[in-house]
């Protein structure tokens, strides 16, 4: 498995767990805004630390691979992930910024924009993983 595919898997799993917990909790309860922000920030920090630790362990186990610069396939796969995720993010931002304000306010808008960001990032990593797994002839 390519080094950058491993990193994409780690990030994807960490994101799905962290933000799965966040959006499940806020949909099941009515937390005060400050608690929501603290929860989101806390989970983000935990997720980032988990990814850094996992990446460091992986790099120690495969040091030569980890030091290698991204090659043309890595760059092509990354571009594909970013360009598809960009459209997901645009749709999310239009929904949050143009459509939702007609019926929603405050924290619903903030959480919807956070959700759009998380979905776009998830799509980016998912595209990367799928491109490495199934092939990409960009």
């Amino acid at each position, binding site marked *: 498995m390519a080094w950058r595919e491993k990193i994409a898997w780690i990030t994807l799993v960490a994101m799905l767990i962290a933000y799965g917990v966040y959006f499940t909790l806020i949909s099941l309860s009515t937390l005060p805004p400050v608690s929501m922000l603290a929860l989101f920030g806390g989970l983000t920090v935990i997720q980032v630390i988990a990814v850094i630790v996992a990446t460091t362990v992986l790099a120690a186990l495969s040091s030569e691979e980890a030091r290698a610069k991204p*090659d*043309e396939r890595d760059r*092509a796969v990354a571009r594909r992930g970013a360009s598809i995720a960009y459209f997901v993010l645009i749709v999310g931002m239009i929904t949050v910024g143009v459509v939702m304000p007609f019926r929603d306010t405050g924290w619903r808008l903030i959480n919807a924009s956070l959700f759009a960001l998380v979905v776009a990032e998830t799509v980016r990593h998912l595209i990367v993983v799928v491109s*490495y797994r*199934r*092939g*990409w*002839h960009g």
Partner: protein
Amino acid sequence: MAESRINNQIRTLRFLAGEMTQADLGARIGVTRQTIAAIEQGKYSPTLEAAFRIAKVLGKPLDEVFQWEDRDG
């Protein structure tokens, strides 16, 4: 799998070139071993530059290394 219309003989030519490993070939053209494996399996179509580099390292003309599969008849 995303289908490629480009076939290649890299695996055979590596064997004929003194059983060159994927890692050796990758190192000589500036890609990872996994990328060479992906090219051999038809999971990735290399750039034109990488294709020329591969052909040069294997000591063959480009069209002996890569072939276009014409499905249109």
